Each structure stands twice: as C-alpha cells, then as structure tokens.
C-alpha cells in the first residue's frame, strides 16, 4: 500500500522517462517529415530555430497534450504561430510521412485540428516499418490550418508531437510567409582568399552547400583539391576532413 502510493506519486511527478524499462527502450523519437512539419522546417533551416534544429525528433511529452513541443521547454518556439512557418498547399486528402530516430512499438497515431480528431491510425503495438505514411481526410476544412500530429508509443507513457501547417484547397488567406529568403545557408565565399586570376581551371574556394562534380577543383586552406565523386558539399566535409571525397593535388 505504502509502495503503491509512493509509486503513484513518482509517476505523477515525473512523466514518461521514469516508466521506461531499463533495457532496449530508452528514448524513442520521431516527427513528421512530409509535408514539412514545424520540426522539419527547423531541421531544413527553412525557419531559423534554436534547439529543434538539431533535434527535430525530440518534441516529447506525456500522452494527451495538444501542442507542438511536448514537454520540452527549449522547444517552445514550435508553438509560436507567428514564426513564419510555411504552410503546404493541399486538397482535402493529405498524405503524411514520419521519420523516426528510434523504433518503438506504437499504440497509435492521432491527428487533430481545433480539437477535432481528423485522423487515427492504429499502431497495433508494432514497431514502425518505413515508409510510415498516412492519408488524412481534411473534408470540411479550408484555408490555413494547424494539424497536431501525435505519435503515441506503446511501451512508455510518452508521445511525440509534430505540428503541420497546411493551406486546404487554396482557401482563406495565404500564409503570412512564403519561403523566407534565409532558406539556403550562406554559401558566400570568404572575401580574403585568392584573387580570381590565379585560380586553377574551374576552381574556386570550397564552399558548403555547393554541388561539385567529379574532377572539379577547389582551393581550401591554401591547398588545391580534386573532387573524387559528385556530391553536395557540407560543413564537416571540408576537403582535409573528407579524404574520401577530395584528393589533394
């Protein structure tokens, strides 16, 4: 009796994580990847965000919430409707896909607009198998809407929350922002490097988010490199750090 009351108190005070069994089921994570949810737009850098940029999958909280951030205080910005989220144009049939960083047995998926449940998919207590794709019926809605998408996992008290902004049937006022001009990360060349006249053929300074063909030559840190295979350059894949992609010449 005493133990039970104590356990109940603990459960009330600390949601979700305490209930996790010790082996094999610690943190499950997931979010709606398509249409781009607010979490996905943070990761895509469509909208500048803080913590969700690197952890779009972690809007975790106890089941039964109706928000975009779960219980994550540092994800609060996901609830800010004025942040310039891009709304996806759709008809009344909307296909939603999910991305998971951990695979957990699933109770169900729920979709809400203004407190009404517009979609429900039973998870059958099974682990998700990609692609996880659901079709939601948005009949009766038009214009800009915010869909609360919820992944209720089966083996802890936790759920994962994603908000999807849509514009149904082109009705209503257009979304406040289209793609902000900040979509592409800056790819500007540092102004202090080599003058253009001394560049090797088809060269230029290596820059992240640039598409390079095999054989392309760049300079980086005073050295010249030749691209081994076609790829889009990324911060972290600088030529000296990605010998598999760049041959020093």
């Amino acid at each position, binding site marked *: 009796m005493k133990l039970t009351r104590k356990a109940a108190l603990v459960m009330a005070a600390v949601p979700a994580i305490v209930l996790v069994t010790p082996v094999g089921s610690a*943190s499950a*994570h997931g979010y709606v990847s398509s249409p781009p949810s607010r979490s996905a737009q943070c990761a895509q850098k469509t909208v500048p965000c803080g913590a969700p940029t690197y952890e779009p999958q972690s809007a975790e909280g106890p089941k039964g919430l109706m928000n975009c951030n779960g219980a994550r205080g540092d994800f609060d910005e996901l609830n800010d409707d004025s942040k310039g989220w891009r709304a996806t144009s759709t008809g009344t049939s909307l296909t939603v896909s999910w991305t998971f960083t951990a695979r957990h047995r699933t109770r169900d998926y729920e979709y809400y607009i203004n407190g009404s449940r517009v979609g429900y998919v039973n998870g059958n207590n099974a682990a998700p198998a990609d*692609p996880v*794709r659901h079709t939601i019926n948005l009949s009766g809605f038009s214009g800009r809407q915010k869909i609360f998408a919820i992944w209720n996992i089966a083996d802890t008290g936790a759920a994962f929350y994603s908000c999807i902004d849509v514009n149904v049937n082109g009705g209503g006022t257009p979304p406040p922002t289209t793609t902000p001009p900040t979509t592409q990360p800056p790819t500007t060349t540092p102004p202090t490097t080599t003058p253009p006249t001394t560049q090797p053929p088809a060269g230029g300074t290596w820059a992240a988010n640039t598409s390079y063909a095999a054989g392309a030559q760049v300079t980086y840190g005073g050295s010249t490199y030749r691209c081994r295979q*076609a790829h889009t350059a990324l911060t*972290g894949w600088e030529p000296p750090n990605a010998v598999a992609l760049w041959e020093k010449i």
Partner: protein
Amino acid sequence: MIAVAVLALAGCGGGAAVPEAQQQHQQGHGHGAATSTAPPPAATARFNDADVMFAQMMVAHLQQGIDLAVVAKAMATAPKVKELAGAVDVTQREELEMLKGWLKLWGKPEQPSSDPNVHAAHGGMPLLDAKVIAEVKDRSKEEFDLAYLNLMTGHQGGAVEMAQTELKDGSNPETTAYAQRVRDSRSGQIQQMLTLINGQ
C-alpha cells in the same frame, strides 16, 4: 604520404594498429581513397568514458549507415538520392577506420561493453538492424526512395544526438572535433534529405 600516416599513428604508441587499419582502408575504398593525404590526426591519449562510448557507438552506427547507403546506391531512383548515398558511403568508411584506430590506440574494444540497445538513450541505436535493412530492400521501386530517405534521416538524427552528447561530456580534443563534424555534416544531410522527401 603513407609514411606520414604511420608516423602519426606510431607517435601515439599504437604502431601495431597501423597495418590492419591500412589494409581495411584499402578494402573499403576501391578507388584508393585516403592514400594521397594523411588521415585526420590520431587521437591523443587523454580521453574519458564519454569519448570511448561515443567512438564505440559510432563504430556500430557508421557500419549500419554504410549498409543502408549501399542498398540505396543500388536501388534509389532519384539521382540526388543515389549521389548522397554514395558520399555517405565513402565518408563513413573513412570515419569508421579512423575511430577503430583511436579505440585501438586507447586499448578499448570496438563494441560497447554491453548490448548497444542499453545505450539507446545516447541517441537511438536501435533504429537500424539487419532486419530493417532487409525490409527496405523489399520495398517497391515507387516506395523505396521515401522509405530510405525517412530511415536515413532518422538514422543520421541519431548521430547528431550522439555528437551533442560527446560535445557536452567528451574530453579528447580530436574526438570532440570529430563530434562537431558529425553534428554539422549529418544535420546538413538531414536538411538535404528532408528537401528530397518533400520534392522541393
């Protein structure tokens, strides 16, 4: 240049690790990557448990990512998906050999001391296994790209989480610098893959 690599490793007291590491490297890269430039510096001897855990978990994580990327190189329809899978494949092979070399120098095994799933809290290890990779191979041509992109986006999201933990708790300078590159390059891949998922 190979001599430079040998010296760099031997200088940290791990000379015995060199031949095997180089042999694996050559097996991993048909085109002989990593022979024209010295590899990233060998890790120094100062390290803590977080560094070891990160390196061990990344060894398993990198191999799973390579297995999945190899499937995508063969099966993906969209050229951009194939291209990214190809770059992930070769860069992760390079990273894998580097981390194996570090663990050898530190005298630590390549596997964590217990079931990797125990460490799921460090960043979602249980996402990919042989069964999941076999399942994605069975997808129709129409479904494959979406299934792969969502899987790989989630998988690399796990790498970002592990890197964040290492940046917070690690002490070895080469390992934390590598964690920074993991965080940046994987979040860059996620950005690209979400764009591909959404057909933008």
